[in-house]
């Protein structure tokens, strides 16, 4: 069980059952479980969608697309079956929120999937778990089995005449399938590579049927919205950014962990108050505020509201809510290398710029970090990233390119410190290697 942290500023909505034994169905029911579903069963599908729209809930996977609007794109009539997918392929470095939901409150995800299915008229829901989250598969499968045993899922749920099935599926270990169309390919048993869009999943998705696909945190928020009302949820956050968010604080912090804070909470306060500030003796060098794919910001930029609209003003993004704090003992070239290595490893290889670009950047960074860099490498890194940006088949290429551009822009001197045979200033013993 992951270590749970807490802070007085937290507004516990999605995390309100964390640490309370809600994996047990009885316990979940004591904690208002499946009430939202029963309420939703009495509502018209449009009313559910309107409630979610009113909540200003924006996709928690990272793109921030309004959830209610996404649901409203699904055609009312469809010759093919409709599906609801829960994207639990949480793989973004620095992000570890969905796993807490699956671990502590699995039924909230099931309930969210079912409410989404009612809203769009789907009869089947899938909960797709990241391949590496093997231990969560057991928890989720038990939760689904328990709910089936009570008749909460399956035929005629709660005597409403509605039939609904839920299946849990585990990935095979690929960051790429966090992309919604690649996830559907993977779920269909194929290679996890993204699809050409349009058509979008809402129209042609899983097995060709209209499909709603949402992040696990988004879906786990839905029961609370139905019970508490969209307006209540919206007011928890800032205008246009409804509700709360699970922020994953990592790095050399005194109290790292996952905190549920209102949307728009100040980043500086988050670091120095909520997470207890930097570990003694270390100073803040930069922050990656939304998972490894977003741009780095410098300490003088951190006085910013953590929502989808404010971070772009300082040249970054809210992303997945993974706040990675970088201290002054960390080599930024090594950090760039680690990030690039991840994308190089996770690139599906489908399109040229991502496949070749990440590999090239990784080779360059390995060489630079070991002291084999030359002056033109720095511009070349930026050139590569800029030529990947916006030209790849799916956003993975952008995710690999955006951070590199920002590292070079904001921390160019650190790259220059590695040139012409100079070993990494942070690792005196390193030897130059050519890759």
């Amino acid at each position, binding site marked *: 069980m992951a270590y749970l942290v807490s802070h007085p500023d937290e507004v516990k909505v999605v995390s309100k059952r964390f640490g309370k034994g809600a994996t047990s169905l009885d316990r979940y029911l004591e904690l208002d479980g499946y009430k939202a579903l029963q309420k939703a069963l009495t509502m018209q599908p449009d009313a559910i969608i309107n409630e979610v729209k009113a909540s200003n809930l924006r996709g928690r996977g990272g793109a921030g697309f309004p959830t209610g609007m996404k649901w409203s794109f699904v055609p009312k009539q469809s010759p093919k079956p409709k599906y609801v997918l829960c994207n639990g392929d949480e793989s973004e470095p620095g992000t570890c929120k969905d796993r807490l939901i699956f671990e502590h409150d699995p039924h909230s995800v099931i309930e969210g999937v079912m409410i989404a299915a009612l809203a769009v008229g789907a009869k089947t829901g899938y909960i797709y778990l990241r391949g590496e989250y093997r231990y969560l598969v057991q928890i989720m499968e038990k939760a689904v089995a328990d709910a089936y045993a009570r008749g909460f899922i399956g035929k005629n749920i709660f005597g409403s005449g509605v039939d609904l099935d839920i299946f849990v599926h585990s990935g095979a270990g690929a960051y790429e399938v966090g992309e919604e169309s690649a996830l559907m390919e993977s779920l269909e048993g194929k290679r996890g590579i993204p699809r050409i869009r349009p058509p979008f999943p809402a129209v042609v998705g899983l097995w060709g049927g209209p499909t709603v696909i949402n992040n696990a945190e988004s879906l786990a928020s839905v029961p609370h919205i139905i019970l508490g009302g969209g307006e209540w949820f919206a007011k928890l956050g800032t205008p246009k950014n409804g509700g709360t968010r699970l922020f994953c604080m990592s790095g050399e912090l005194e109290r790292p962990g996952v905190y549920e804070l209102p949307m728009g909470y100040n980043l500086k306060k988050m670091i120095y108050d909520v997470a207890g500030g930097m570990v003694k003796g270390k100073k803040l060098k930069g922050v990656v505020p939304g998972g490894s794919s977003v741009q780095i910001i410098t300490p003088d930029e951190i006085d910013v509201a953590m929502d989808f609209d404010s971070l772009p003003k300082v040249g970054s993004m809210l992303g997945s809510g993974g706040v990675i704090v970088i201290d002054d003992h960390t080599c930024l070239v090594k950090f760039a290398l680690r990030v690039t290595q991840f994308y190089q490893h996770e690139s599906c290889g489908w399109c*040229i710029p991502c*496949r070749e670009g990440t590999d090239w950047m990784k*080779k360059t960074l390995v060489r630079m970090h070991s002291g084999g860099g030359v002056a033109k490498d720095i511009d070349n890194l930026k050139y590569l990233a800029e030529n990947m940006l916006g030209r790849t088949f799916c956003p993975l290429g952008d995710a690999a390119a955006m951070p590199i551009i920002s590292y070079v822009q904001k921390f160019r001197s650190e790259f220059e410190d590695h040139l012409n045979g100079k070993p990494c200033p942070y690792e005196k013993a390193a030897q130059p290697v050519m890759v």
Partner: protein
Amino acid sequence: MADITLTVDGKKLTVPAGTLLIEACKGAGIEVPFFCYYPNLSLQGACRMCLVEIEKMPKLQTACTTLVAEGMVVTTESDKVKQARKSMLELLLANHPLDCPVCDAGGECELQDMTFKYGAAESKFMDLKNHRDEQQWSPVVYFDRPRCILCYRCIRVCGEGMDVWSLGIQNRGPSSIIAPNKEDHLECEECGMCIDICPVGALTSGAYRYKTRPWEMKHVGTVCTHCGDGCKTTLGVRRADTGMQIVRGDNRDKSGINGEFLCIKGRYAFDFAHHPERLPQPLVKREGKLVPTTWEQAFDLIAKKFQDALTSDGPTSIGVIGSNHTSNEENYLLQKFARLVLGTNNIDHHRTADFPAFASALAGKQNTTASMRDVFSAPAVLLIGNDPTEQHPLLAWQIRSDVRLHRAKLYVVNSSAIKLHRQATSFAQIVSGSEGNFVQFLAGNDKAADSVVSPNLTREALTTLRDALKNESGLVIIFGSELRGADVKALVDFGLAQGAKFICLGDYANSRGAADMGLYPDMLPGYAPVLTATRYHEEWLDEIPPIPGMNLLQMMDAAKNGKLKALYVVGSNPIARNNIDPFALSKSFVIVQDMFLTETASIADVVLPVANAYEKSGTYTNTSGDVQMLKKAGEFAGVRNDFECIVRIAARMGYDVHKLVPFGGAGTRADMGQTRGAQSGESDRHAVWLASHNLEPKMSPYDPTAMLDEIQRLVPGYDISRLNLLAGQDVHSQLVQITGATGMGDPALIMPANDSLFTSGTLGKFSDTLNTVYERYSPPHDLEMAADYDPQVRMGG
């Protein structure tokens, strides 16, 4: 569909709705580069070369996946687009080995062309390249991983196009690699389509690799000489000690009826042409052994033996067997030679389909045969018998493509689950040998169903099938040699009632031509009975013998009984193909024209070494009746073509060759140089030069074009566009003008070749590539070997 107007680079284009932007641009002459896009294959959007700017879209968009929209404004040449293309090439070249100087694709490489046009001359890459060793996947397919740009064309053409699905992707990211289906090798149809479609030199041909540079070859687009489908194959030819060497067969010229397609035979099985056992000079039997002789002595001997037989036993003591691989002109000449010079109707060939019954059933009906191209766009296809995947690979491709791209309905009626049943809307597995009864059932005889139904096929299903077929308009009906005689007639009558078109499947490259040109004892060209007065009787300058001659089996019987004094076999191997006891021919003087010492040639008294279809000009008619011109790719030193041999024998017998070949006479149209193997530009220059010197194009009695003139004038259906033929196009010959055809060919004489994808009759035995592949797919116990088998000594056995 409604039209859409959009603007590309300031040009206003109007295209049908549903058009891809990349196709709209292509149609307007605006080039958008691409690697992974390929017409008629699924879209990938993977190579990102076709990125263009579209107004109101923040990012560059791939033209290959974008559908045109009303009012769309597109820019294909902005700085942003140019930079995107350039960087895409830089990224590709980073890991590319740049071994262009030794790469097979050098000079024919799309990556080279793109880099030349859109790329950067300098490279920013300075690290080690990812490398993997070259792999051999099959006798004919090699894979060089570092050169691969992962466009996935090979995977799609193999899966979607061929329905073989033997290629896939392994690993991911920069380690992604195209992988074969069986661990480290391929098990597939060995068609080589993956090699043809590869834009770079990643997939290379076992037959061609590292042999030459593409610009050292002459590229001659001619007709494949194996099965009856008539694919156009482009031969890459180089000079060699023996005259010329074919180094490559490929689909460089995609204008043929086969479009993209070629199978293993069209692509690799040209190698029989320089097989070491190819005969370079005439042979004559002395003291029981075939020994070399000169052409003059051989012709003298043949003429003398023919004369002797005519004098002693009369014209009926001589038999002639023609070929399914010789040209229409040669076949026409051969039967004319038999009838006029020898004065006998004893002429036949190895029949593989009942074309006479087919012609007879269709006699006088307009527009009732389907061309190979028609199959691609037919709304519905009925296939009875045969296994096109093995025996007519192009036809199978056409049917598959029709189903895949046009959602055509395919009805397969076969005694086994042939591969095409996977594309079938309806598959009726009938009892083996009941094809004829099935047709009778179609024609309305319900009782005939008794022998057709099987555990796999109920009577109800048969009735449903018949009802469905009756409601199909635009049906193309294709049938194999299982149907003969009255069954063909019944099927044709059934189909004609609803406006269907037909294809009758014969097995070799010019089987249809042999039939059309009258290699029958009872029929003249165009299936005209010898008994009735025809245009040939009017035009030919000698009398046609008035009684039908002996067919092939009757000739063999006559030979056995000592009544056949001489047998003239042109490009045929009856001993092997028709299972004739070689001893039967011991009492006859046997003359064989062939490339090799086949089973028949090895017992002959005289063997004349001749040219094959790649070494001569003329025309071929494929099984569906499409006429195409053979273009001479080069010569093999020492041999002559069958046409010349026939004419020389006639001349040596004292016959006036003007009566045989109407050369130099009125109405003869000039050869454009094709007889000399001239290419289009060259032939034009030749014609211009002749005209400017007030010279007639030279005609000789050995010029098949003169014979083509007569064929076009006299043979029904062959009055086709000479210009289109010369331009290398396929021209469909209809059986329309056939009248009075009797279809009296004996159905029992039909012996299908039953070749597989990896065999090709006698020719196939001399193709090392086919043999290597065949042996690879045949379990060892299938190979029978004599106790004294020596792989170094390979008689045509």
